[in-house]
């Protein structure tokens, strides 16, 4: 019996690993945002914390809602409570997500629309950052900036960069065929050789920005919760 419950708790944590902070493009487990997860029968309870009391409530809402969806999808879990603690909008977010009310339903007098556009915008940034990592891999492997616009997914070696790029492409509905170009515009269109340096340079800035934010948020989390020092994942 105990064994089964341990397995289920692990399954819950694994499910939570798929939930990302949309701004930081990293798992909420790796970021140290999950403080506890317990399973009792078919019910899971997960507690989440964030680096500051004022962290943007829209992103906080997305993480709580995504965590609920992920945990509920674990076989054998019938109900899940996701509890965001120590945040100014904790109550509204927790009860809103529990009730399946959506962002507007959670903040009826305040939110003007759901968060689809916001999520999309950050998925786009995450794709650009993943694209830059993949391009850097190719440049290290001997490709040149001139040849880069012709590089295809199949040209990427097996490894973290290719997997990350494939996942981020899937998020923004770009195809995953081996023949797809690596360096593309946000809409998946090819990049002209003349435009490649600027596209790649901007992608570099996007990646630096996201990585830097993740460093800062980790630091603030560790300051706010001194017990929370978590291993940094190599990005």
């Amino acid at each position, binding site marked *: 019996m105990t064994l089964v419950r341990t397995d289920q708790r692990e399954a819950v944590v694994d499910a939570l690993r798929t939930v990302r902070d949309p*701004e930081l493009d990293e798992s909420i487990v790796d970021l140290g945002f999950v403080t506890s997860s317990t399973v009792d029968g078919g019910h899971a309870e997960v507690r989440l914390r964030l680096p*500051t*009391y*004022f*962290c*943007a*409530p*829209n992103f906080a*809402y997305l993480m709580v809602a995504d965590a609920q969806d992920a945990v509920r999808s674990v076989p054998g879990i019938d109900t899940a409570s996701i509890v965001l603690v120590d945040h*100014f*909008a904790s109550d*509204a977010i927790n009860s809103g997500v529990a009730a399946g009310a959506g*962002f507007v339903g*959670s*903040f009826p007098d*305040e*939110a*003007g*629309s*759901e*968060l689809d*556009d*916001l999520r999309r*915008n950050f998925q786009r*940034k995450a794709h650009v950052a993943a694209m830059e990592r993949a391009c850097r891999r190719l440049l290290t492997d001997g490709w040149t900036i001139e040849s880069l616009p012709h590089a295809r997914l199949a040209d990427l070696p097996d490894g973290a960069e290719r997997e990350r790029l494939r996942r981020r492409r899937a998020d923004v509905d770009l195809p995953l065929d081996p023949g797809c170009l690596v360096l593309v515009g946000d809409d998946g269109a090819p990049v002209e050789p003349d435009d490649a340096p*600027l596209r790649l*340079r*901007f992608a*570099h*800035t*996007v990646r*630096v*920005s996201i*990585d*830097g*934010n993740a*460093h*800062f948020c980790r*630091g*603030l989390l*560790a*300051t*706010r919760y001194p017990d929370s020092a978590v291993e940094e994942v190599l990005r």
Partner: protein
Amino acid sequence: MYTKDGESYFVVDGHVHFWDGSPANQANIHGTQFIDCFYDYHKNLSPAEWLWPKDKFEKYSEQDLIHDLFEVGYVDKAIFQPTYLTDFYTNGFNTTEQDAAVAEKYPDKFIVNGAWDPRDGERGLRALGELAQRYNLRGVKLYTAEWRGDSHGWKLSDPEAFRYLEKCRELGIKNIHVHKGPTIRPLERDAFDVHDVDVAATEFTDLNFIVEHVGLPRLEDFCWIATQEPNVYGGLAVAMPFIHSRPRYFAQIVGELCYWIGEDKILFASDYAIWQPKWLVEKFVDFEIPEDLTEYAPLTADVKRKILGLNAAALYDIEVPAQFAAKVPDEPAAEVAVGASS
């Protein structure tokens, strides 16, 4: 001023505060959490020897301010940026009036900036005129993400904001400091989005738009718009202290800024009292881009001189003694992005 290895630097601290975040002034839990959040920033990014006890951080004295900026902090001129937060603090957190009361006692040390909110309409325009006259304003600090009643914040591209920008032009207020986000209300869009600055900067080419915190956490969006607008600048408040705790990240921030917007448009700032100018100036003058970050140009003494003071001095017409001038006359030495040199 600061001198090291035969190089002298004129220092303008582009973003300082004289606040009261003490429990006695806190109006509600948000006021408590706001100063707590600042204190976490302070603890997270300061060297251990520069940490203040919480009660001093909540409310420091005028003597502390003067000592830390001018007696030991190398600052020649400091720019007060107000942060009213009257919903959180009974007497406001840091108002123009509070800043001006100190500035009057120390002539030639401070520049006092004002603030406005386009939702104040005609009344606000009149108040801005009075504020400008009283304090000889040359700059304002704006928060676009503040909620009020049914309004979910505002944009610099709003017609009402344009009326205020026109008023600034008329009053000779030419430096518009913009602080994007964060919002304490549930906003469905990104509170850090800087695209409205692009619109306003295109329309008001005779005004300077200084994006505070260089757009962090949206450095990429800021760089993208700033490279296309010759009148958009980046203030380094909050970015500076990474020089201690995350020097590689700091190198990347400054490297990106120099690439996209150029060395003439980056302004030093401590965000005192969150951080202290003394250690920031010392570390910045010693700082070099790590060798393996080959995509970035080196930070020469001239680049540092511009960032530490000359750029802000140009925006605020601050007279700089000749010995602090850049040694190499302006010419585009480093690779700068398309548009940055226009």
